[in-house]
């Protein structure tokens, strides 16, 4: 347990610095934007110079840059992300409302790419250099080369337009009045295509890593020993070769989380899934810079948390991790 705590403490200290840099960086980026939230607001509502003055003052936009950064940091400490212009609601509420959808989408897509990718990787890596190994390597590379949004469109054409098996987009049937289990099924059916589009792109990564790790493990002495002991091939592949190749994939899970979040922006826009990614696009369209800043910040927090979880999982899987520091 002390091992986990050591990792936790070290990571949290580093994360605070990283988050601070993210906040300052995005603040500077948004300072560079032509026009501010008041301009965007006035465009949609109309109003005279007096009202612009009033709004600038009320939203604190007439102060110096440093004061505004300080104000922003102070507000963030109180978990206040500010007010969204396009939604006329607190940004925190808007984001929290959209977050679960994206988490479900990301989680399912990660499970798909990790599960199927590592399984196929084991299948390919069980016989390095064989036909199926070569076929899967090239096939996965081709899949990795596919733009995610385009795969989404193709899936829509095939499964929603031509075959009519699955809904074309959205997260659930509008005004269906479904509750409980039938609502969950409804959402699951709506998520099949977006999850496939997002998951299949990253499948190749896990497949290729698993395969490469296994090709490496085959050359190790303990595998030779296992084969010399006359263990069944199946057991050698699963318990000795694959098991050792699996660990780097867990690290990849954390590193990939940021990529997945980025990928979900386009996928959510293709499938009209009301999640965080689509919110980012709406923020861009509505010139809602504070909202965009909030989304970037929440994404960064999310990525840090996921990587923390992965680190802890890694410590459980590999007893060597962090052992030295805990005993020291």
């Amino acid at each position, binding site marked *: 347990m002390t091992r986990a705590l050591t990792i936790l403490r070290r990571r949290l200290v580093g994360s605070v610095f990283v988050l601070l840099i993210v906040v300052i960086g995005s603040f500077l980026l948004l300072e560079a934007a032509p026009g501010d939230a008041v301009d965007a607001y006035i465009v949609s509502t109309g109003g005279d110079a007096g009202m612009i003055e009033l709004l600038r003052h009320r939203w604190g936009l007439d102060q110096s840059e440093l004061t505004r950064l300080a104000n922003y940091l102070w507000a963030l400490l109180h978990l206040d992300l500010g007010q969204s212009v396009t939604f006329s609601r607190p940004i925190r509420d808007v984001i929290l409302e959209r977050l679960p959808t994206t988490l479900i989408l990301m989680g399912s897509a990660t499970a798909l790419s990790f599960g199927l990718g590592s399984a196929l990787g084991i299948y390919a890596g069980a016989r390095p250099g064989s036909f199926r190994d070569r076929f899967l390597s090239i096939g996965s590379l081709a899949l990795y*080369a596919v733009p995610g949004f385009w795969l989404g469109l193709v899936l829509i054409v095939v499964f929603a337009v031509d075959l009519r098996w699955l809904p074309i987009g959205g997260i659930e049937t509008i005004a269906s009045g479904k509750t409980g289990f039938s609502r969950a099924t409804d959402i699951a059916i709506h998520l099949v295509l977006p999850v496939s589009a997002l998951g299949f792109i990253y499948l190749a990564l896990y497949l290729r890593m698993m395969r490469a790790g296994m090709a490496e493990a085959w050359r190790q002495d303990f595998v030779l020993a296992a084969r010399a002991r006359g263990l069944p091939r199946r057991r050698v592949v699963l318990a000795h070769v694959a098991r050792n190749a699996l660990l780097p994939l867990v690290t990849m899970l954390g590193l990939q989380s940021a990529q997945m979040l980025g990928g979900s922006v386009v996928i959510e826009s293709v499938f009209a899934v009301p999640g965080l990614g689509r919110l980012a696009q709406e923020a861009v369209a509505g010139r809602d810079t504070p909202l965009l800043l909030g989304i970037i910040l929440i994404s960064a927090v999310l990525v840090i948390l996921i990587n923390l979880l992965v680190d802890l999982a890694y410590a459980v899987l590999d007893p060597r991790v962090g052992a030295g520091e805990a005993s020291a």
Partner: protein
Amino acid sequence: MKRLRRFLHTPEAIAGAFILALLLVMALTAPLFFPGDPQAIAGPALLPPFQDWSLPLGTDRLGRDVLAELFHGARTSLAVGLAAAAAALLIGAVVGTLAGFAGGLVDEALMRITDAFQTVPSFLLALAFVSIIGPSLGVVVAAIALSAWTGPARVARAEVLSIRERDCVAGARVIGMHPLEIAFREVLPNALPPVLALSSVIVAAAILTEAALSFLGLGDPNRVTWGGMIAEGRAVLRTAPLLSIVPGVALMLTVLGVYLAGEGVVESTAVRRSLS
């Protein structure tokens, strides 16, 4: 010649080289075969492919020549992909060298900044950058480079950490070279090979990011892009799915070609290294 033959020793590398050569020809001959504005109306709207031989791939929703758009799109994809990757590799190599060579507080600060860039989803960063500064080719290149330099920086730093202990660096110190001169004339060139090995992955990612940005309407509006063509075709996805599918296939082949050629180069240099 020998090097080229070694590069082309696997069927994958040959396929990759072929695709890239084809793409290069498309990009270079676009103004030759399709002079004038590819965004100009060339015929009736939504002409299906293979109907009219002056418009082999038909026209889109506004009557623009799809084949001409495809050729001009190759120009944009290739230009953005190569420029963004070059910029990302340059930024990464410089930051990594400075961090690794200076060490101490500079190293710590630069690596925390690298961490911060890696924590923010790179596509979200590029999206925010382009939407704030405004979509033009230069901004798109800068946005992609900004979201892709962290990998090269880490690799360069790791390499520099071992190179700075070499005798040539100690020698340069003894003859009184300025530390910055040592960093960029002695250390950086030696640290480059593993950084350059990343280039195919970065070019591929840059092309895909550019496509995704233009798909969301954040590409340069004055240029034809494959991502923009896919977005344009999306409005008639039910009746003319080919308008979205064709540029997507072009994108996929391009990225695949970059990957395959990149693997071929890495493999051929690996063979050379193990031989020497």
